[in-house]
């Protein structure tokens, strides 16, 4: 079965790191017949990933949509739990919520805001083909009004993934994990668009 690497036929690295050099007779390369590999001499070559790896592939989008369909019914619980964990595990994030009366896990303001966040995620799933364009308003909100440091998007994303693992351990396979991680990273990039 052809993998992503075997579609590259350019010499340069379109995106991402190459593998370490290895012998052309390696098991990974036996069926590739030299396609998708770049020879570096002495019977060695490296694999370069295709440019497609740097953004959401069609397969990623399908995986995201299928997983989201499974979990959307629990969006409120997911949002509440992810935010609760973020505030406990990464206490520096509490600095954005000094106006809340109660920052404890599962509190009313946490639940309300969890719903807000997951509504945004659901919206992003529906706009997965154009996150930058689709999330312009949200980006302006985060850039000019909320002024959340973009490093925190990664933190919240991590906690959303942990909650997926806890609530849907059988469905949150490594393949789903990478697709959702890429999607949330792309979402974060779209939210950062208007920052500067």
């Amino acid at each position, binding site marked *: *079965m052809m*993998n992503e*690497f075997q579609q590259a036929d350019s010499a340069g690295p379109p995106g*991402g*790191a*190459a*593998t*370490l050099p*290895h012998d052309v007779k*390696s*098991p*990974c390369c036996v069926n590739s017949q030299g396609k998708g590999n770049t020879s570096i001499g002495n019977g060695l070559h490296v*694999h370069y*990933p295709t440019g497609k*790896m740097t953004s959401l592939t069609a397969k990623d989008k399908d995986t995201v949509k299928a997983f989201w369909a499974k979990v959307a019914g629990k969006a409120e619980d997911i949002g509440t739990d992810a935010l*609760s*964990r973020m505030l*406990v*595990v990464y206490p520096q994030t509490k600095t954005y919520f000094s106006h809340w009366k109660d920052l404890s*896990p599962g509190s009313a303001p946490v639940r309300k805001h969890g719903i807000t966040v997951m509504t945004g995620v659901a919206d992003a799933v529906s706009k997965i083909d154009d996150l930058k364009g689709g999330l312009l308003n949200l980006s302006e909100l985060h850039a000019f009004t909320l002024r959340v440091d973009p490093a925190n998007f990664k933190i919240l994303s*991590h906690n959303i*993934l*942990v909650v997926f*693992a*806890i*609530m849907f*351990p059988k469905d*949150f396979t*490594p*393949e789903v*994990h*990478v697709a959702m*991680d890429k999607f949330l990273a792309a979402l974060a990039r779209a939210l950062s668009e208007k920052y500067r």
Partner: protein
Amino acid sequence: MHQGIRAKSGLTPQTRSRSPEHVWMCVLIEAAVMVKWTDKERSLVQAVWEKVDIDVVGPDALARVLIVYPWTERYFGRFGDIFTATAVLQNAGVAAHGRVVLTALDAAVRDMDNIRGTYAALSRLHYEQLQVDPENFALLADCITVAIACKLKSALDPQSQATWKKFLSAVVDAMSSQYN
């Protein structure tokens, strides 16, 4: 192996400085970096760890690292085909090495007051011989957390997750400590 690394670095018990000032500096540095644990935190770490099945979580965590962060494949050429998710999940070398990594975590759980000491030799190995970018330790820590979350499910409550993160951060710090 450890003697080889120490000889290569030029540091042996005979040549390393034993001046009182040097010794005192080492004590101060260790005191400054030593992580402090409350009794509650110690029991939370133990409670998480005793639910971890190394044979399940180890392979799962390492497979996730290779699948979610594919550039980490650069360190594992000896495992053969690890270039698709399917290949990673079927690869015996990956599974075996996942068990090795989680078994090494057990040493830190058993001696939480000496995490830096526990990993000093491993850190130097990863720096000098294996030449692993320490950024990867944080990636592995995140995947270990996700793998544990799959296994423990709601037993990994927010407080447990926080304490476990503190523990893994100490391990990541210790693994990075000999990079200089």
